[in-house]
């Protein structure tokens, strides 16, 4: 397992361009103002929420057990301790993981943090009591129990060994809360912030901003470098671009489309730098298998074959937050398909004319030459509407006349959940790169209730049940290809272009490194200002 991880790590550093590391010593002081590309989130409880609006506003206040290495966040396999003292080796059967907890850590109210607090937090995440919501509860299906034999130790016992355990554990939402507060009220953290992270809460202005000040008792030596930060909610993109230009804010951490990056480069020159990375998000084309004629594999396949992903992704990368062609696994992961492997799949053929000829033939064979339908899409520009508009034009090239039915987020989700659509453009956006867990979203609805394509496929389940407990990277890779091929052969669903994250920021911001997800590496502890 360690070997596999190491190999994966090496492979990955070669794949993702590492940021040129500047050998500068961080400076203390300064105040960072950044924007959150959303309106204020729902509750403040990271365990129950899923929108980054919450995470970007709260992560600097909290510690976690383990995390993606903040100095190497683009790696998909490099996990390091935050509150633990050393990354543990599992027991021989890979079922027991023992973490030693750092001593002398204090919550912002001065109370000491012990393994009991870590335990209480993890129990809330893994096995929440009745009436308490845990959004990622389902990703801990492998956990048998969490226990704490003493004040310094946390033990995770697993039901089966799996590669997906560590990434799930390093999920950035798994904040450590105070046991005392949780015992008083399990919902206390929905309205309050109290952690042990690099920053203490200063003020929270409803709907507008969050301010944090340096935590002098922080346990990582020297950190945090900033005296404080202000995070401003700014949902409109034009405002965010202009704010960076006028230095009202230094950056936003999510992503900006190419036109905005280009504009900032043009206007600010060397006063702005941009970090970019493939993104563990993408759009998924989901035909509703329960609706005629999409119950016919030929029709579904024809729709996929009509799309020129290679040329499209390249062109769209100039106008939308997309870039890389990929399939069910994040392109930067060692488990992802190579370009040669992809080109075997329907919808990825290198010869688009041949592909479209085949699409037309399939439609004719299925008697659907004059196919017309609505593509269900979400009223979000980047990149849903751009990708959707592009796909419609691609389909028109094989004679399919589709129109877009664009609805706001709520009705869009509802239409998919209730099966009230013909073909939908969905999003697939996972936080930490965890391929084994991530591919669960492609599984038929008897395994994953939230797959709206509405198909059953025992073969897929069979492959997946072998994949989950597989800890050998080579074998897992083979199984992953089988799964991918099965999904594609049956034309269940199609991944269309992975998103591409570009974060332009004022060049005085140093120390932060981009990762494949806008959820990762957001505690701001290693950021410093060179002013």
């Amino acid at each position, binding site marked *: 397992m360690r070997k596999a991880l190491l190999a994966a790590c090496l492979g990955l550093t070669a794949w993702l361009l590492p940021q040129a590391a500047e050998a500068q010593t961080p400076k203390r002081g300064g105040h960072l103002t950044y924007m959150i590309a959303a309106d204020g989130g729902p509750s403040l409880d990271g365990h129950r929420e899923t929108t980054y609006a919450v995470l970007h506003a709260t992560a600097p206040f909290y510690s976690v057990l383990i995390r993606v290495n903040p100095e190497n966040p683009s790696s998909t396999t490099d996990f390091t301790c935050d509150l633990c003292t050393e990354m543990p080796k599992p027991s021989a059967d890979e079922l027991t993981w023992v973490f030693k907890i750092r001593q002398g850590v204090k919550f912002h109210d001065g109370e000491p943090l012990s393994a009991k607090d870590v335990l209480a937090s993890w129990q809330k995440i893994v096995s929440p009591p009745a009436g308490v919501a845990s959004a990622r509860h389902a990703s801990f299906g492998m956990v048998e129990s969490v226990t704490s034999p003493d004040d310094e130790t946390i033990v995770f016992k697993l039901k089966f060994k799996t590669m997906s355990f560590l990434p799930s554990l390093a999920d950035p939402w798994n904040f450590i809360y105070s046991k005392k507060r949780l015992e008083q009220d399990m919902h206390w953290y929905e309205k309050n912030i109290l952690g042990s992270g690099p920053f203490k809460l200063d003020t929270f202005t409803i709907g507008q901003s969050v301010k944090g000040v340096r935590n002098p008792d922080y346990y990582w030596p020297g950190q945090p470098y900033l005296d404080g930060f202000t995070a401003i909610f700014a949902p409109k993109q*034009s405002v965010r671009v202009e704010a960076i230009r006028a230095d009202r804010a230094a950056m936003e951490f999510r992503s900006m489309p190419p036109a905005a990056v280009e504009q900032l480069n043009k206007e600010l020159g060397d006063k702005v730098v941009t970090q970019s990375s493939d993104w563990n998000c993408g759009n998924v084309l989901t035909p509703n298998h329960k609706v005629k004629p999409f119950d016919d594999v030929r029709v579904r396949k024809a729709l996929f074959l009509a799309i020129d992903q290679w040329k499209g992704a390249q062109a769209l990368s*100039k106008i939308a937050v997309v870039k890389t062609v990929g399939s069910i696994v994040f392109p930067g992961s060692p488990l992802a398909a190579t370009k040669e492997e992809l080109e075997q799949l329907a919808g990825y053929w290198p010869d688009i004319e041949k592909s479209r000829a085949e699409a037309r033939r399939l439609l004719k064979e299925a008697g659907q030459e004059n196919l017309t339908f609505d593509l269900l899409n979400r009223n979000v*520009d980047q990149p849903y*509407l751009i990708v959707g508009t592009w796909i419609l034009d691609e389909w028109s090239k094989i004679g399919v006349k589709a129109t877009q039915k664009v*609805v*706001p987020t*709520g009705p869009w989700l509802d239409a998919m959940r209730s099966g009230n659509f013909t073909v939908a453009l969905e999003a697939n956006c996972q936080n930490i790169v965890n391929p084994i867990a991530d591919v669960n979203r492609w599984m038929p609805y008897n395994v994953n209730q939230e797959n709206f394509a509405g198909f059953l496929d025992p073969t897929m389940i069979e492959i997946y049940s072998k994949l989950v407990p597989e800890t050998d990277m080579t074998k897992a890779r083979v199984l992953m290809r089988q799964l991918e091929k099965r999904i594609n052969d049956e034309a269940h669903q199609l991944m269309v272009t992975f998103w591409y994250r570009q974060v332009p920021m004022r060049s005085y911001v140093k120390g932060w490194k981009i990762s494949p997800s806008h959820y990762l590496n957001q505690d701001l502890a290693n950021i410093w200002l060179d002013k």
Partner: protein
Amino acid sequence: MSTTVPTMGLPAAVDASLALRPTVWMRCLRFVRREPLGTFGLALVIVMAVTGSMAELIAPYNPTANDFSAMTEAPSWAHLLGTDQFGRDLLSRLIYGARTAMIVGLSSALVGGVIGLVLGVGSAYFGGLIDLVMQRIFDIVMAFPLIILALAVVSIFGTGVQNVIIAITIPLIPRCARVVRSSALAIREIPYVDAARACGFSHSRIILRHMVPNVMAPFLIMITASVGQAVLAEASLSYLGLGVQEPVPAWGLMLQGGAEEYASTAPWIAIFPGLAIMLSVLGVNLFGDAMRDTLDPKMRNR
């Protein structure tokens, strides 16, 4: 999305100029001479109507075809107004957009206007409880924020052109009905309606023959004002993501994604659709004002 309710005094007397009836041409000529701004407005409206209805003949390109080899190109001889982010010809999209604007503007103004006319006249004529109830309903719809109505319509039916029209039409109805009602009330008090009733004429005959023609002036003014408002409302809905959707060429939609992202790097994407909206609404309003001045008897003899 508010309405400027023109202050209407007494309704136009139908037979104001019966004595000497000038020919249509003479009337037009007089309109042109006395209302240069109104004529300019009318000219803008005619240009819009002609380009919209003959889009296929005029537009140099297919308005929905993507061309990835010509993305965000500045205006040139090949693309007179440049291209948008999908490489689509802006001029062609503007020309087809005129059609969408006309469809949205005219149909919501006409449908909203006619329903408003019927309800307004009916409410004024029957009076009593019917009037009271209708008034409350108008109040509710007028006070209700458009965005909620629009969101409800769009969420339930989706964002087609016809649904946008529905969303825009609903709030127009009570505004039109209000204006028509107040004019109709004044007429109702005039003895000849009572006389007509005494003669035993049917309700429909009295309403159609006597009341409707007399509220025509405010009604027409209201409708012209509504056309402009509908075009603007479509743009505002698009800005909130509830308007007409890609790839349908529509001005408001063109202003939404493009205007924000490319306002600085490719300003033509933002400027031309904005100008198109401004000019068309300006045209409709100038024409409407001139028509009010011409139709309103108080304004006539100046």
